[in-house]
C-alpha cells in the first residue's frame, strides 16, 4: 500500500506538468487579443500595447513562441514564482486569497450532498417505489430542470431578500452562515446525482446473496443495512463524490458570481475572459492537484471498503 501511494505521488508530478502544458497550449490556441480584452470596449493606445506586449511576451507566436513562453513559465514556476496577471497583480497572491473561500464553499456543498444525498439515497433504495422514493425522483428532476443560472438568483431573491433567512451575498471574507445558501445551491446537482447513485447501489446490493445469507443467519435488518449493504454500496458513490469535490471548486463560476464570492471559479472566469494565460494555468495547476489527491484518497478507500481490492 505504501509503495502504491508513493508511486501515485510520483505520477502526480508528471500529471501536474502535463496539465500545465495542455492548459497553456489551450490558452495559447484561444488567444485573441488579451490587451483589448483587458481594455473592454475602450481603444488601446499604441504605447500601452507595446508595453504589455513586451512585458508578457505576447509577441511570441507560433510553435516556437509557444514553447518559449511555456518554458519561461515553467522555469519561474519551479522557482515558486507563478507570475503576474495582466493587471500587474501577483498570481500567487490572487490564489492565496481565492482558494480558502472556495475550499470552504466546496466543502459545505459536499457536506450537503453527503448528508442529504446519501441519506435520502439509502432510504429511497430500501423503500423502492415508495412515496419517499418517488419524491426524491421529483427532487432530482427539479434540480435538473432548474439549472444553477436560475436556481442561484431564485434562492438569493426568495431566501435572501424576501424572507431574509440568509444574507443575500457572502462577500470576500464570509462567515459559515453566509456560505450556507451558496453551498446548498452549489451542492444541489451533486446531491441529486449522489442520491440516485446511492439509491441504485443500495437497491442492487439488497438483492445480493450475502444479504440473503445475513438475513437467514438472523441478523438485524438495521445491522445488515448499515454494515453490509452500505459498505458495499458506497464505492461508486465515493468515486463520484471524490471527483465532485474538484468540480465544485472549479465549477462554482455561476454561484460565486451570484453570491459575490471572489473565489477560484470567479477568478478562473475572469482570467479566461481576459485571456490571462498565467492566471488560468496557475488556477488549473492547483485544481489538478486537488483532483489528483482526492482521486488517490478515493482509490485508497476502495481497499478499505472492499478487502478483496488490493494494491500491490
Amino acid at each position, binding site marked *: 500500500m505504501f509503495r502504491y501511494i508513493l508511486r501515485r505521488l510520483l505520477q502526480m508530478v508528471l500529471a501536474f506538468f502535463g496539465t500545465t502544458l495542455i492548459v497553456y497550449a489551450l490558452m495559447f490556441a484561444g488567444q485573441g487579443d488579451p490587451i483589448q480584452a483587458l*481594455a473592454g470596449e475602450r*481603444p488601446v*493606445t499604441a*504605447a500601452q500595447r507595446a508595453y504589455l506586449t513586451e512585458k508578457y511576451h505576447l509577441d511570441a507566436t507560433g510553435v516556437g513562441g509557444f514553447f518559449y513562453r511555456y518554458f519561461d513559465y515553467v522555469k519561474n514556476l519551479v522557482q515558486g514564482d507563478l507570475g503576474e496577471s495582466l493587471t500587474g*497583480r501577483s498570481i500567487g497572491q490572487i490564489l492565496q486569497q481565492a482558494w480558502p473561500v472556495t475550499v470552504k464553499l466546496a466543502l459545505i456543498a459536499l457536506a450537503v450532498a453527503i448528508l442529504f444525498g446519501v441519506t435520502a439515497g439509502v432510504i429511497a433504495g430500501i423503500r423502492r417505489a415508495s412515496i419517499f422514493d418517488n419524491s426524491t425522483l421529483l427532487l432530482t428532476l427539479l434540480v435538473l430542470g432548474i439549472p444553477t443560472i436560475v436556481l442561484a438568483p431564485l434562492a438569493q431573491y426568495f431566501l*435572501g431578500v424576501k424572507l431574509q433567512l440568509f*444574507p443575500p451575498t457572502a462577500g470576500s471574507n464570509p462567515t459559515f452562515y453566509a456560505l450556507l445558501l451558496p453551498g446548498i445551491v452549489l451542492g444541489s446537482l451533486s446531491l441529486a446525482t449522489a442520491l440516485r447513485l446511492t439509491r441504485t447501489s443500495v437497491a442492487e446490493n439488497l438483492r445480493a446473496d450475502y444479504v440473503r445469507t445475513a438475513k437467514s443467519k438472523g441478523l438485524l435488518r438495521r445491522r445488515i443495512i448499515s454494515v453490509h449493504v452500505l459498505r458495499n454500496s458506497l464505492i461508486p458513490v465515493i468515486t463520484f463524490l471524490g471527483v465532485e469535490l474538484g468540480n465544485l471548486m472549479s465549477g462554482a463560476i455561476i454561484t460565486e458570481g*451570484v453570491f*459575490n464570492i471572489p473565489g477560484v471559479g470567479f477568478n478562473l472566469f475572469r482570467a479566461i475572459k481576459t485571456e490571462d494565460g498565467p492566471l488560468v494555468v496557475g488556477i488549473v495547476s492547483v485544481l489538478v492537484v486537488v483532483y489528483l489527491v482526492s482521486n488517490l484518497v478515493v482509490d485508497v478507500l476502495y481497499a478499505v471498503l472492499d478487502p478483496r481490492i488490493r494494491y500491490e
Partner: protein
Amino acid sequence: MQVRRLAAWTALPLAVTLGLAACGSGGNGGSGKSNPNAAVSIQIGEPQHLVPTNTTETSGSQVLAGLFSPLVDYDAQNKPYEVAAQSVASSDNKVWTIKLKDGFTFHNGQKVMSDDYINAWNYGAYAPNGQGASYFFEKIAGYDDLQSVDPDGDGPKAAPAPKAKTMSGLKKVDDQTFTVTLSQPYIDFKTMLGYTAFYPLPKAAFSAPGVLKDSYEQAPIGQGPFKMKGTWQHDAKIEVERYDAYPTEKPKVQGVEFRIYQQLSAAYADVLGDNLDVIPTIATENMSSAAADLGDRYKTSPMSSFQFLAFPTFDKNFSSPDVRKAISMAIDRDEITKSVFKGSQQPARSFVSPVLPGYRDNTAGAAGNFNPTEAKKLYQAAGGPAKITISYNGDGGHKDWVDATCNQLKANLGVDCVGSAEPKFADLLTKVEKKQPVGLFRMGWVMDYPSMEDYLGPLYSTNGSSNYYGYSNPEFDKLVKEGSAAPTQEEAIKKYQQAEDILAKDMPVIPLRFGQNVYGSSTKVKNVEMDLFQRVNLVKIEAVS
C-alpha cells in the same frame, strides 16, 4: 397594508420631532437625520489600476474621484468651472496658464504644487510606463518625444528608449502656477482637464524622478475629500475616510466603502436587503422590477453613453448610404426603449450625446424616424442584402435589444436577420480587423469630457481611435479639425455641427439610443447623485441614522 400604514404614521411625527427642518435638501429617498459620523457603501467592480494616468474604467475612476480633486469640474450646463485650479486661462488656446488654488494638501500633509502636476503628467505620457490614459497628453507639445516606435512592429526587437522623459510643453512658473503649451490650439483643453488622467501625484508616489513606487497603487495618496483607510483589498473592498484638511466642500459622511462586486445583480440583491447603500448601475435583468422594488429610491439621471450600429466599410453589401438609411428607418427605436429598456434609455436620432453643449435633436433627419413602408421601398431600390447579421458581445446584456431589432428588421424589411453573439468585445473587434463577415455590429461610446469633439474625433474621424468600421470623409475631418482650433466655443460648436450634418448625409452608423444613469440606493442614505461619468457624487451623499 395595515402594518405599513401604521409604520408611516409613526414615522412621520418621529421625523418631525427629530427636526428635519434643519435639513433643506431632503426628499431624496431615505428620510431621517443626516449622520455625519456614518460611512456609506457603494458598489464598484475590481478596478484595473488606481494610478490616475492608468485609469480609464468607471470603477477605478469612482474611487479616484474620492481620493483626488480635479482641476475643473462641470456645472449644470456641463461647462467647466475651477475646483483645484484657481484659474485656467489662455489668450490663443495654445498656451494655457494654470494657477492652483491655495490650501490643497495631499493626504500625507504635503502641499500641492505645480511640480506635482507636471511630474504626474510626464509620467503618464512617457511611453515605456504603458499608461492607459497616455493619449490625453498627446495634444501637449513635446508628447511625441516621449514615444518610441517599435522598429519591427510586433516583432521580437524592443522599442528603443524615447528621446525625452519630460514634455517640453509643461513649464513651471512658480509653486502655484505652470503653463501648458499645446502643439496646436485646442479650444476644449480646459474642459479636458476634468478627466481622471489630469490629477496630480505627490512626491511620495515616486521612488526616483519619473519612477512610480510599486506600492503607491495599493494605497494612493491624493488631495481629494477622502483619504485611504488601509490598503486596496483586491476583489473585496477599498475603504476611504474623510480628509479633514480638505479645503472646499467637505463630504457629509465619515467614510465610504467601495465594495467590489463581480455581478451587478448581486449588488442589486444587497441593496434590496439594505446590505449595500448605492448601486450606480442597475443591470438590465433587474430593470423591470427595480421601480417596484425600490420605489423612490430608484432614480435616473443624465449620462453620456451612446449606442449605435456600425457598418464595416469592407462589407460591400452596406456600401450604399440608402441601404444604411433604410435599415435605420426600419428600426422602431421608441418601441425598443419602451419595451426592452422600460424607458431607462432614450431613443437616439443624433450622432452626439444630448448632454453636450451644441447638441441638436434629430440631426439624422428622416433616416432617424420610424417609417416601415418608406424603409422597405428604399431598401429594395438600393439593393440591400436579403440577409442581415447583427454582431454583438455576449457579455454585455445586449441580447434582448439585438434580437428585438432583428425581429423588427425581419418584419419591416422582409429580410432574414440573426443576432450573432461573440464572447466579448475584443473577439468582435478581432473579427472586424480580420475583415471576417460580421454584418452590422454594435458599439457604445461614453465620453471622457463634455465636448462634441470627444464624439466626432474618436468615432468618425479617419484616424479615430474607435473608428473600427473605417469611415473616412476628408471634408468631415477638416471641419472637426477647424472646430477644435476655433478661437471661441461658439465658433467651434458651429464647425462641429456642420461636421455632424455630413454624418447625417453619409449615415456611417445608425444611432440607436442614449443612456442614462439608472441607479438605486438603500434606505440608509439620501441625496444620492450621479455625474455624467457614472460616478456617485461623494461630497453630496448623506447617511441617514
